[in-house]
């Protein structure tokens, strides 16, 4: 097999051309369908990267169940890369991987060593995750075990460099729980996982962040992430990747479309290099290839009509640190964690043990669970309780507040209600254009739109 330039170089070239890279979350058990999906992704009129998402049995290490399901011809919700033979995966990728079309494998495992071994066998050089972000939200694997397994996995993956390949690893830390984790901690986790990857030999890294509740706050978060990466990662290849909203999605098609368009515009405005898209049906079922293609195309269209910031192609190598709340919070958390131990893995373990990292609403036994968050009147995601985090709740002088069950439920559905209400307004003003004030939709609260 020929040497293939990595995902990092592909993204850097796209950045130089002023193009946003867009990527789906596609995964099918059947190799032929998977190949079809990758080809369709490659051929979209956009700068795309292919995705192979693995099934959930492989994710939790239940390889027996994956094998049984394949043998019985039952459906799996992704591609079982450890269970399919290396020949099957080679055939799937044959003639498809190239410098112009990298493929990233997405999994979600807290014990990914066998997955990384399968990637190395098939010379797949791009994947994602992290010892915290693939452990705490999804199960009961102890954090210590995840850190150990991820350390060995990263070292195995980094050795692909000996073969003339360029392994690329993306942090999932900026997406913790999908929603309701305040941006300062998301940015800090993404940076800390990137430092963990670097400590275990990776030299091409991307840092993730998931779109939250307020476009202005999200822009500050992406700027903070970029600044901290520049300050702390040193001279390695890195870029930033934005995930379109991962929480409860709008129910209306136009609401969902507007939310995804806003994600693409946010990426372009902030000089973010890569975007992981969603589909309208994602919350209901596994999207088809055609639905993925539609989302990729829509994201590319939304990106092209968004003005790029000046200097995005050649970013200032040492910009001044942003003077924002998100930056200060993220910086304070990162500094406090790195002070705990020279080794980033040990520092992460100590930080969770002491509550210096504490994810709101995360029920994992290794998470202290003394923090909580809420959405303020302007739509920004804020701390209600900060536990032992090295940050203060909200603005100076404010005290911890208790989040009730109904406030919690409203926060969970805030984004979906906001975009569905906008969709309703658009529809209503189109239909009743003679009326000055279209009726508000049922149950609509105060206008949550921020700037």
């Amino acid at each position: 097999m020929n040497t293939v330039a990595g995902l990092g170089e592909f993204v850097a070239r796209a950045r130089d051309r002023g193009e946003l890279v867009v990527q789906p979350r596609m995964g099918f058990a059947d190799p032929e369908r998977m190949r079809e999906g990758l080809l369709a992704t490659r051929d979209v009129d956009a700068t795309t990267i292919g995705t192979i998402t693995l099934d959930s049995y492989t994710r939790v290490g239940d390889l027996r169940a994956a094998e049984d399901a394949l043998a019985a011809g039952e459906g799996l919700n992704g591609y079982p890369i450890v269970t399919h033979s290396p020949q099957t995966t080679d055939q799937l990728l044959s003639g498809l991987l190239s410098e112009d079309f990298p493929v990233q494998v997405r999994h979600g495992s807290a014990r990914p060593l066998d997955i990384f071994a399968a990637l190395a066998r098939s010379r797949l050089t791009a994947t994602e995750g992290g010892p915290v972000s693939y452990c705490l939200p999804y199960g009961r694997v102890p954090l210590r075990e995840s850190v150990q397994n991820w350390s060995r996995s990263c070292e195995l993956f980094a050795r692909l460099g000996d073969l003339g390949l360029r392994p690329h690893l993306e942090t999932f830390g900026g997406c913790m729980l999908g929603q309701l984790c305040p941006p300062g901690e998301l940015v800090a986790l993404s940076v800390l996982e990137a430092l963990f990857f670097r400590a275990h030999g990776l030299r091409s890294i991307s840092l993730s962040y998931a779109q939250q509740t307020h476009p202005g706050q999200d822009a500050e978060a992406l700027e903070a992430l970029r600044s901290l990466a520049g300050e702390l990662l040193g001279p390695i290849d890195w870029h930033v990747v934005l995930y379109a909203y991962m929480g409860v999605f709008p129910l209306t098609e136009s609401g969902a479309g507007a939310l995804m368009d806003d994600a693409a515009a946010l990426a372009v405005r902030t000089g973010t290099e890569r975007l992981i898209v969603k589909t309208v049906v994602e919350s209901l079922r596994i999207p088809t290839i055609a639905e993925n293609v539609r989302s990729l195309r829509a994201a590319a269209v939304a990106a092209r009509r968004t003005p790029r910031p000046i200097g995005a192609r050649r970013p200032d190598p040492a910009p001044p640190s942003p003077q924002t709340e998100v930056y200060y919070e993220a910086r304070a958390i990162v500094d406090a964690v790195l002070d705990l131990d020279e080794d980033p893995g040990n520092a992460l373990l100590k930080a969770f043990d002491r509550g210096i990292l504490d994810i709101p609403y995360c029920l994992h036994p290794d998470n202290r669970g003394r923090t909580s968050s809420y959405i303020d009147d302007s739509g920004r995601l804020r701390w209600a309780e900060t536990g032992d985090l090295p940050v203060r709740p909200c603005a100076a002088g404010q005290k911890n507040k208790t989040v009730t069950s109904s406030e919690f439920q409203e926060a969970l559905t805030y984004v979906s209600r906001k975009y569905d209400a906008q969709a309703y307004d658009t529809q209503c003003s189109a239909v009743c254009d003679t009326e000055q004030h279209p009726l508000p939709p049922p149950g609509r609260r105060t206008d949550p739109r921020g700037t």
Partner: protein
Amino acid sequence: MNLPGAVSPTDPDLVSTGHRAVAVSPGAEPDGSRRPRRKVLVTTVSSDAHTWNLVFLQKVIEELGCDVVNLGPCVPDDLLVSACLEHRPDLVVVSSVNGHGHQDGLRLIRRVSERSELSHLPFVIGGKLGMDGGEDEDRPAQLLRAGFRGVFEDNPASLSLFRSFLAQLPSGSEL
């Protein structure tokens, strides 16, 4: 105490509002007298990694004056049994939204019923319990027959039914 509008097909303790939500009365509170704080164990089935439902339920239950032990996602049956023995809760609430709640719930309640120490501990289950997304008429009855004391399928009425169920729950000392 039966809930208003209840029908009791066979078991006098069985309460139903059509097939939308079914609950067995946990027992009447004789008067409004003070009682010790009740302890509720919140959990899910072994295959379910969802947690927002568990966090929400914890808040609802705490707001009704109970202490909550929340076991989090993907709870193996053995862990649930040992947690029940360790914490001695007054009620176990099983919530599942991944579509496997019905099957996993039946297996779980059979495992629990093998333990005589837990025979007086009431279990309820709720959420999106089946794959079809809708409500299957047989599902609640099956779960009740297997030993659950209440079944709260995902629908607008379930939360208030669950709240009234909880409000009537006596503490362990009165069971």
